[in-house]
């Protein structure tokens, strides 16, 4: 039954990949990348059960953490143009001061 889950995840991964290639905006691609990350986490977990090696779950955890950090970092870059920008909250505080 894990095989069926893995196949479903592979199909979903292919569809998400299609969206990442089609675009058209950078945000579509980022959304697709985020979905691929989530699906890859699930895939790693299912693969761990499929092969009887539950250590794969640790990889899934790390992958999930990296996924969200990567998405936020790329988003920040595309919103402000550089990664060192203090962002909205800092600007707001500056305006109040």
């Amino acid at each position, binding site marked *: 039954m894990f095989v*069926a889950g893995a196949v479903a995840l592979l199909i979903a991964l292919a569809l*998400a990949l299609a969206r990442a290639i089609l675009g058209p905006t950078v945000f579509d691609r980022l959304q697709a990348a985020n979905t691929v990350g989530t699906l890859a*986490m699930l895939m790693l977990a299912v693969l761990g059960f499929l092969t009887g090696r*539950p250590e794969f779950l640790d990889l899934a955890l790390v992958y999930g953490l990296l996924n969200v950090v990567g*998405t936020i970092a790329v988003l920040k870059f*595309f919103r402000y143009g550089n990664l060192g920008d203090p962002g909205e909250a800092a600007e707001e505080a500056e305006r109040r001061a």
Partner: protein
Amino acid sequence: MNTVVDVLSWICLLAGGAFCMVGALGLVRMPDFYTRMHAASVTETAGAGLMLLGMLLQAGFSLVAVKLVMIGLLLLFTSPTATHALARAARARGLEPLLASGEDPSKR
């Protein structure tokens, strides 16, 4: 008893896989970015949740189950954060949502 748990976990796994596919299909088929984001959230909530629940039933009470719960919690916290940041960044960049024809956004 064992069979009952097995069948339940299979149902959860299959339903989770189906929801993942539906979400990904929506990601391809929906007309604009914001609706696609809506479709993708199905994958991250129902799909991932059900698949993890299915695996949780197979794992029983063990360290593996704890790790699966951790993955579930991680998803619950990170996927809304990422989606929110994505929508905000797209809106700040001036990406307009697709409206039904004849509707004027300034008149609302």
